[in-house]
């Protein structure tokens, strides 16, 4: 037979067990055996602090009153968890990389380490969570009372208030012992988390056991439950089991939002997270946990409604059903399940809240009473721990007093959703901060204040009832009779459920104000740095460069860090940092990188804003300088530069490749040309040789008896050998010119003289071909200083070419001389058909002849020699298209030096 005393004893033993589990886990953690403690399974189970006594007991009551709707409280978190890749992964990554200690810390850190935001979020969390803690105390007290009431004959009814105070005290003790046992840089509590995992199992097993007992023990299996359900639906008041779309959607969203923003959920979800593999498993395992928790809720509610006496509190069916059917063991288990739910929630919530209160309210106040300097932090560690402990005590006391004041009535039961809606106000600032770089501090502050005020006005204050803060007339007619301001029908929107109404207005206006002010405001540099780090956390894990200080010695920093991290730990950390910089000893250089890391280490202990303020106090500058921003911009700039550099290089490569292919083509052409040259040479040499041989053979064999014929043969041999000699002369000349071993003999002479000489030399051809020469002798007085013999050679070549190849009837050659811009131009224009366009580029090559006019007697080297000569003289020879006939232009600088001749008087130039 289960007595109240047995209950107390079992309860006590259970608590002792939890103490032992927590103690053991902490011990393991201290021996660095955290592998087991950080398994994904423990993490998943610790998430079950979401299921408080309100859900353990309340879900059945909820289902008994409104049917399926209770499930929305679990559907929201399910959606959040299965969408972890999208949101939670980023949140957890930010939490880890920034060493975030609480949700207030996250928001404060994101918006430029603003302590104002930290305080705001802390206040919202405290206001939203305190009633919730009161609710847990109530549920434990109520469950004790159930046992006391049933066996009241013979036993004294225990003092309920006393139960509540004992529970609150015990929880405070447990939380202080294990929650503030260590001052960890990661703010992780292995002992507490493991104890909570154990409690999660107890909860689940208890509810499943009760469910199985109800369905197959007394409900008559699934068919029996279905039948009972139909009966219950018929008996229920009209519309109780209907689905209300607004509430269904609104509550699903609300539970999803609260899942992310409740301080205790943030604590287990983000702060206690060790790696992303935990999250991967929790993404399906935690929804499964919720699924199992809610699987038997409807059957228990249905059976309870149909079998229990009327007027029984449906909130306690989980407990009263086994008791009613004399299943004491099951009732005991069920009680422990409810007890676990309540205690785990209170423990984690008070740890989370105490961290927030001490980091964002107590430490900044304490800090501001100090003057700057490292030596002032002598007792920081003790102060911090004392602040944590004090906060835990205060929060639990606050919960207890709230419970006492509210009287533990029905008003408290509704507080669950109200609390959810309150903390959900942090969501816009949090989500906006993670995904939108433009979200600013002013926007976040304004949004939070707006949302919180509307929540308080439309939901929180009216929840105290008409006797509370708001009078009945205010509720019915609005303040001062203004209908539009009625708390539960703001702006005339009535007909909505109060919770959905409040959620709608508070979050909508919260978001609108947040976005609007963010768009209008201009964030500080530090804020923008943080924004970039938060939003891009998945892209790169490297930390942005921090400030650079030279004035601060690392000794000051070490002194401060020792007082906060503990001497041993701080020294070890500084030593490892110094080692990383390649230094010996304990004092690393105060590089920006080192400062940033130290700040992050400290923020794991005292929160971002406080750590930032402490370091700023020592370093004497809390603001980000322009240099820091430039450094960040520099990285972008460097990337851009690298890209453009790559592009330039690519272009360069393309150019080189083009050049190479050009050169290759030229080489191929040269090779072809060389072959052609060789075959030409052989041909040119062979033709005269053949005739010389033939005629000399005739002479030798006495074939020409006739002396006249012999003389003719001899003259042919002579002519051919002359031609051969000329060809060889030309070749020699060309080769000398091409190899640059030419000797130049410059002298001063007028163009007229040179031309006269050239014409005199070619007079025989001119007379033979009857060429008419046009000259303007008055233009030809320009004096030259050059190797005029060579120049005359060019002129001779051009004149004889014109004489030989001009195909006009009355051959005419015009020679025009003029000076243009210090250059002498001599044009030789005949009246023939000229050179066809396609051949113009070829005529200066060796052995190029327009026709096979061998009769002309040239080997096709004349123009090639001309070009080489002009090149050596520092001028050029070009074909001049578009004239009346064939036209060549010889250009020569009047005063220019000879090609590469430094000393014009040098007689010999070995070029």
């Amino acid at each position, binding site marked *: 037979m289960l007595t109240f005393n047995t209950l107390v004893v079992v309860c006590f033993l259970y608590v002792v067990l939890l103490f032992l589990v927590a103690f053991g886990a902490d011990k393991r953690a201290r021996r*660095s055996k955290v592998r087991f403690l950080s398994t994904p399974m423990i993490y998943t189970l610790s998430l079950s602090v979401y299921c408080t006594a309100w859900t353990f007991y309340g879900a059945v009551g909820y289902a008994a009153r409104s049917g399926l709707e209770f499930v929305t409280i679990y559907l929201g978190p399910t959606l959040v968890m299965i969408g972890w890749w*999208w949101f939670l992964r980023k949140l957890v990554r930010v939490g880890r990389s920034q060493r975030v200690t609480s949700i207030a810390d996250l928001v404060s850190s994101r918006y430029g380490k603003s302590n104002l935001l930290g305080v705001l979020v802390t206040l919202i969390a405290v206001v939203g969570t305190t009633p919730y803690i009161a609710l847990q105390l109530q549920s434990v007290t109520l469950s004790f009372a159930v046992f006391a009431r049933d066996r009241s004959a013979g036993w004294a009814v225990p003092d309920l208030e006393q139960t509540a105070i004992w529970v609150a005290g015990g929880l405070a003790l447990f939380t202080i012992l294990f929650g503030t*046992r260590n001052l960890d840089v990661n703010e992780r509590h292995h002992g507490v988390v493991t104890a909570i995992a154990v409690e999660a199992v107890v909860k689940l097993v208890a509810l499943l056991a009760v469910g199985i007992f109800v369905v197959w023990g007394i409900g008559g299996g699934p068919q029996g439950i279905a039948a009972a359900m139909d009966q219950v639906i018929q008996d229920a008041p009209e519309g109780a089991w209907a689905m209300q779309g607004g509430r269904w959607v609104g509550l699903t969203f609300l539970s999803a939002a609260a899942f992310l923003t409740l301080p205790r959920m943030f604590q287990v979800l983000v702060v206690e997270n060790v790696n992303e593999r935990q999250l991967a498993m929790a993404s*399906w395992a935690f929804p499964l946990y919720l699924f199992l928790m809610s699987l038997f809720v409807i059957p228990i509610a249905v059976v309870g409604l149909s079998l229990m006496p009327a007027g029984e509190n449906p909130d306690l069916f989980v407990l009263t059903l086994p008791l009613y059917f004399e299943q004491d063991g099951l009732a005991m288990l069920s009680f422990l399940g409810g007890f676990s739910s309540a205690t785990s929630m209170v423990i984690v919530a008070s740890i989370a809240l105490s961290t927030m209160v001490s980091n964002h309210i107590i430490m900044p106040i304490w800090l501001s009473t100090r003057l700057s300097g490292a030596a002032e932090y002598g007792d920081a560690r003790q102060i911090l721990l004392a602040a944590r402990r004090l906060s835990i005590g205060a929060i639990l006391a606050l919960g207890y007093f709230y419970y006492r004041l509210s009287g533990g009535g029905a008003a408290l039961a509704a507080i669950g959703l109200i609390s959810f809606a309150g903390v959900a106000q942090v969501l816009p600032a949090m989500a906006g901060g993670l995904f939108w770089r433009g979200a600013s501090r002013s926007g976040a502050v304004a949004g939070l204040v707006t949302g919180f005020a509307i929540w308080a006005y439309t939901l929180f204050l009216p929840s105290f009832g008409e006797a509370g803060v708001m009078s009945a007339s205010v509720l019915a007619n609005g303040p001062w009779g203004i209908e539009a301001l009625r708390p539960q029908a703001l702006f005339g929107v009535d007909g909505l459920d109060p919770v959905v109404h409040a959620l709608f207005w508070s979050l909508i206006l919260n978001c609108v104000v947040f976005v609007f002010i963010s768009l209008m405001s201009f964030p500080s540099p530090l804020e923008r740095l943080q924004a970039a780090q938060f939003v891009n956390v998945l892209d790169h894990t490297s930390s942005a460069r921090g400030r650079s200080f030279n004035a601060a010695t690392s000794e000051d920093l070490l002194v401060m860090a020792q007082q906060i991290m503990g001497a041993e730990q701080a020294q070890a950390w500084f030593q490892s940092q110094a080692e990383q910089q390649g230094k010996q000893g304990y004092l690393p250089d105060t590089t920006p990188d080192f400062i940033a890391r130290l700040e*992050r280490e400290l923020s794991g202990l005292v929160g971002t804003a406080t750590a930032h303020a402490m370091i700023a106090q020592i370093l004497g500058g809390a603001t980000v300088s322009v240099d820091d921003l430039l450094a960040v911009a520099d990285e972008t700039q460097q990337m851009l530069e690298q890209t453009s550099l790559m592009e330039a290089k690519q272009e360069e490569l393309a150019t080189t490749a083009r050049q190479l292919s050009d050169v290759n083509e030229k080489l191929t052409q040269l090779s072809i040309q060389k072959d052609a040259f060789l075959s030409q040479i052989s041909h040119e040499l062979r033709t005269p040789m053949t005739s010389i041989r033939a005629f000399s053979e005739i002479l030798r064999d006495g074939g020409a008896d006739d002396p006249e014929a012999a003389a003719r043969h001899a003259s042919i041999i002579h002519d051919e050998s002359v031609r051969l000699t000329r060809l060889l002369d030309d070749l020699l000349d060309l080769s000398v010119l091409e190899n640059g071993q030419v000797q130049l003999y410059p002298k001063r002479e007028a163009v007229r003289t040179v031309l006269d000489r050239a014409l005199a030399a070619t007079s025989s051809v001119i007379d033979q071909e009857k060429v008419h020469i046009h000259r303007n002798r008055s233009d030809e007085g320009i004096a030259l200083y050059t190797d005029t013999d060579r120049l005359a050679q060019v002129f001779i070549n051009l004149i004889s070419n014109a004489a030989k190849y001009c195909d006009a009837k009355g051959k005419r050659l015009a020679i025009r001389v003029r000076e243009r811009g210090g250059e002498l131009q001599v044009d030789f224009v005949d009246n023939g058909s000229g050179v066809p366009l396609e051949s113009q580029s070829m005529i200066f090559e060796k052995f190029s002849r327009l026709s096979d006019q061998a009769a002309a007697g040239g080997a096709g080297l004349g123009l090639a020699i001309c070009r080489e000569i002009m090149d050596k003289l520092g001028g050029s020879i070009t074909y001049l298209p578009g004239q009346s006939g064939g036209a060549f232009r010889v250009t020569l600088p009047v005063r220019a030096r000879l090609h590469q001749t430094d000393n014009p008087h040098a007689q010999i130039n070995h070029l």
Partner: protein
Amino acid sequence: MRTPREPLFLARQSYRKRRIEDAARLLPLLGVILFLLPLMVGGEVGSMRLAYVFTAWFLLIFSAGILSFFLGQNLDQDASGEDTGRPESSGGIDKTSDDTRRL
């Protein structure tokens, strides 16, 4: 000799990995749709709708489980690269902090 079914993509693994990530992003959307469907039917909630909600819920959990199996494999690779890139989380520091974090 060419096998008749030669893979078309060379980076099949990374392609599959990205598609799994897409699926993980879309899954909550599917959840929202599944959980909104019961609203399309009016009237009291019967056993049918009860069964539907719980079945849909379980299917989502099942899909999330399969996806997280593959995503978890990818995380292992990512994590190894991540650790080397972050000197502040080097093992030496954590070990010493474990030893000294008691009060």
